[in-house]
């Protein structure tokens, strides 16, 4: 069963009070399952970071895998050992 680590930044770190969490998925588990797990584990993420239905990320939050690529389709599968960055990146200031 693939195990991934979700890293929290900004609001998600404030809400969870953690820098990261480990999630073990069922075989064939997807990034949407990661969202569902986060929504269940940290209900405070619903609204600002995860949509109230617990199925989608709230725009403009996104998953970036291993700081290399952004996940555009939540129904794809992470690899075992992936580090998933949950971030809200918009430049400015």
């Amino acid at each position, binding site marked *: 069963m693939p195990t991934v680590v979700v*890293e929290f*930044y*900004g*609001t998600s*770190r*404030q809400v969870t009070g953690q820098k990261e969490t480990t999630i073990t998925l069922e075989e064939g588990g997807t990034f949407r399952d990661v969202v569902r797990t986060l929504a269940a584990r940290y209900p405070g993420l619903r*609204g*600002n*970071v995860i949509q109230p239905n617990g199925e989608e990320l*709230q*725009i*403009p939050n*996104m998953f*970036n895998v*291993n*700081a*290399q*690529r*952004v*996940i*555009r389709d939540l129904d794809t599968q992470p690899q075992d050992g992936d580090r998933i*960055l949950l*971030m*809200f*990146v*918009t*430049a*400015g*200031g």
Partner: protein
Amino acid sequence: MYGYSGKILHVDLTNRTVRTERKPEDWYRTYIGGVAMAARLCWENIEVGCDPLSPGNPICIANGLFAGTPVPVGGKYGIAAKSPLTGFLGDSMSSSWFTVALKRAGWDGIVIHGASDEWVYVFIDDDRVEFRDASRLLGVDALAAGEVIREELGDDQVRSATIGPAGEKMVLMANVTNDSRQAGRTGHGAVWGSKKLKAVSVRGTHGVRVADPDALLKLCFDITEAAQGPYTQKYRILGTVSNVLNMNRLGLLPTRNYQQGVFEDAELVSGEYLHEHHKAKTLACAQCPIACEQMSRVTDGPYAGAIAGVEYESLYAVAPNCGLNDMRAAIKVIEVCDKGGMDTMSTGVTISWAMETFERGIFTKEDFKCAKYPEGFEPYFGNGEAAVTLAEMIRDREGIGDLLAQGTKRASAQVDAERGTETYKWAMHIKGLECPGYDARGLKTFALGLAVSTRGACHNRTAAYDPDIQGEVDRFSVDETRGELAKDTEEYAAVYDTLPLCKFIRRCFTGKADRAGAWPSIAKLINATTGWNFGYDDVDLIGERAHTIKKAFNIREGWTRKDDHLPYRWMHEPMKEGASAGHVVSEEELEYMKDLYYKAKGWTKDGLIPKEKLIALGMEDVAEEIGV
């Protein structure tokens, strides 16, 4: 006309005269306001080829269309002049009450010509203009000057745009400050200083007439409500400084003068750390329902009492990019810049250039003698007191501060000429403007956007990091899409900079920030304000016209294709560690992307604008002068 007064105020500092210019409605439809209108006023009023610090360079201020109305985040104005840093158009923006007052005084814009023999400030009291002695304001810091003027005039409703001590000394990275906000980049404070102009103060007592007040209010309520939700959470809760850890993780956080993209102590200079240890309060500009400015305070140590609004673009420059892991010193540097009236980005990047030059043994302790440290000091990376002292020396043009006050391009050229060195290889600027807080070696579309920007290295004028960071394209590679992307993102940004609306509102219309998500709502705002009948395509044209007038200005001032460059470091030194390790922007990649970009713009291979293109945009007189 609704939304406008139809009047531009011309102020001549040399002869101390004023006149009113009336502009036709078509002119407003073409240039709208903000950055585009200010650029157009500069096009019309500059002595072509002039020294930026000479009387022939006008200060051009243009209100936003929505300033003084209820439109959320519409309290903004544009300012333009020939930049003393770049030699091209210096366009900048600021927000809040000054522009509201100017709109209420009945002026859509101001053009300030000439230069005064004595220090003055200009007081605009509705349609009356006074030239007032500013001698007692000299040395007053940029945050306090407006209050001193209010006391002098006995009216707490007077709003001022001022320069600080750095502008008085024509420090090339000096800015213009109003209501604690800054028109920060490209050196406008130096231009004001060259004219002996300390401030422009305004009392405005009229209302702003809009075409359909009921429709406008309804639109504004909806946007304001959306602005309290998730689309702006980052700005409201932590502010833009939340980018520190994100950029660090992506390997893009400028560190030690862009030698690295990862800072080992990023947590200590992060937005999260700032929020927990230093937050004093959150501020909002006039007309803003978001409130993003994180006022941060130092409560202990040698800089206790320092307080500053800390934004990401200030923080990256003075903290990781100078190797600082002490947030207290970073806040102090920002405070020195804000009070002195200096751009934190250019100041921080210039200090980091000096630090690297010291660490490479070209500068020595002897070079850093000053009144505070008569024997000199050692500005190694991470030395917070050195960063604070260098900011003060730049502000005062003291010692080596006189060299650094010219910015990295000129400072490195002077050192290299005098000492036979190659410090230009780590002078991090484009067209003379210091680089922003994203290492473009790991953002290839953004690299193109920065290289071709009319303003120099500015993240605000090109939004080309969006497709890279949000994963629309592979941020590490180059392909045939990048020219169109750079064009689309810079013209997208130009719409916001011309209305102007703060870009932080961009998801609050429909939840989607793209053109389809935002333009229809923006058209409704424009129409309810002006009575015009703008649609999607008209909004889109705002951006293309705005960018075109700025480009035309630069072409007339001598721009050529080779001016669209990147810093040596980004093109020759691959990143060493982190998520962007190994990446660089090669000469071949850059030139390929420039070809794509000029083609996407409908320009020649040399980046010049065909006459027919300008005529199609309604810029016949521009076509006559620079069209090919």
